[in-house]
């Protein structure tokens, strides 16, 4: 069989398997990882009215992977009556962040300006991170909708990081590193990150050094968090498909090797 045909078969197989697995609703129970449990317990422990800062530091293309994380985190915060200041240090994350916050706020009857606010986007991210350590008003004189920041009720009690319990950076790259390196040491700001699975290993050094409080990584992290939260969402929904895709790869690798060794035998080079 020629190479092209084999590719088509592999591609079609993946498409069919993932699409089918996505339509079935099975709850795949898994032990939450230490990191996810730590994140959940921390948010759970906060008293009502505590202010969190959620930064949507990702591009639109990684939305499928990071949005389940931001959805469940914001739901959890709103359910526990925590307040959220949203912003974005990545141009593409801006509209996404605003829409996500609004959508979940509507589910929990939260009011813009009182329970949450969206500050918008700042391009020079390092300057913005450092600037907010002194005064959030200076960095964001107006919110995303153009209101003067100092007239927004939720901002009454907020001046800088001293008034913010934790910064949660939802990222597909190294923006959370900049939060860690700039807001962390100088302003003693606690930082949590929601990451794509591919980025998890890059953040290991910061976790082990304690500079990063905890992480929620990938669809699997989101699913685990949803289980702790008690309401399955997009993370859980994706797990059967994720499992099917991984198993499909395992099967492909095994078949590839069977073919390879059979051909080798036939060519008389002996077995293993």
């Amino acid at each position, binding site marked *: 069989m020629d190479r*092209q045909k084999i590719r*088509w078969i592999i*591609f079609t197989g*993946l498409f069919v398997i*993932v*699409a089918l697995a*996505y*339509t079935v609703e099975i709850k795949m129970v898994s032990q939450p990882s230490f990191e996810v449990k730590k994140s959940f317990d921390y948010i759970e422990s906060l008293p009502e009215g505590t202010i969190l800062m959620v930064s949507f530091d990702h591009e639109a*293309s*990684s*939305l*499928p*992977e990071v949005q389940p994380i931001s959805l469940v985190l914001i739901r959890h915060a709103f359910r526990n009556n925590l307040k959220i200041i949203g912003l974005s240090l990545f*141009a593409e994350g801006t509209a996404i962040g605003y829409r996500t916050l609004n959508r979940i706020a509507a589910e929990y009857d939260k009011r813009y300006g009182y329970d949450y606010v969206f500050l918008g986007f700042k*391009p020079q991210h390092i300057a913005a991170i450092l600037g907010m350590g002194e005064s959030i008003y200076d960095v964001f004189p107006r919110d995303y909708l153009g209101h003067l920041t100092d007239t927004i009720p939720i901002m009454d009690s907020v001046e800088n990081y001293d008034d913010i319990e934790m910064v949660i950076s939802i990222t597909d790259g190294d923006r959370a590193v900049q939060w860690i390196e700039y807001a962390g040491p100088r302003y003693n700001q606690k930082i949590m990150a929601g990451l*794509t*699975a*591919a*980025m*998890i*290993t890059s953040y290991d*050094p910061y976790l082990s050094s304690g500079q990063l409080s905890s992480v929620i990584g*990938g*669809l*699997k992290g989101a699913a685990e968090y949803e289980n702790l939260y008690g309401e399955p969402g*997009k993370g859980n*929904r*994706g797990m059967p*498909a*994720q499992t099917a*895709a*991984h198993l499909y*790869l395992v099967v492909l690798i095994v078949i590839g090797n069977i073919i390879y060794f059979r051909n080798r035998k036939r060519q008389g080079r002996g077995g293993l």
Partner: protein
Amino acid sequence: MNIGVIIAGILTLAIYTFLYKDNPIYRAAESLLIGLAIGYVLVIYWQTAFMDRIFLPLLNQGDLWVLIPLILGLLMFSRFSRKYSWLSRIPIALMIGAGAGVAIPAMLYARTLKQISASVMPLIGENGAFNFEALVVIVGLLSTLSYFYFSREHKGIIGQVAKLGTYFLMLFFGATFGYTVMSRMSTFIGRIDFLLSDFLQIIR
């Protein structure tokens, strides 16, 4: 159904036709993608570079410092002329030189010192037990480093150690592959979610 969802769905399928082979539908989508992406970047840079960094500081605050990057930027336009195109080497030299200056300490710190220091662990733990992990890390680090030793052919002892290094490298590549696949599959699942729930509305 929302017109935006219909268009997004059609474009999604158009890109997927590439998996069959290159074809006019994919090519049209690709051209549109490239054109829109360039247009998008132009708008973003118009706002963040030209407006925020040049015109607004210059006109609103009378900040004359911005003339330096402005002139450096304009020098890039010398590339349109054959005779003066060498002038564009000045801003390029600034970017390359400054980049190199930043890179030396940053690379030595993050990529060398940090990594070396993090690899050092006592071989005997606090409870007096032998720390197998510490040994694995130190052997892995040194053997892989010897793989990157270029001054001598990989023969004899160096050859053996470097060979051990390649085994560690393969462990790393295998593990990274396994870890990264999860992300890659998630993005595809995201598109399937869009196609099945938003576009075709087969599932809720």
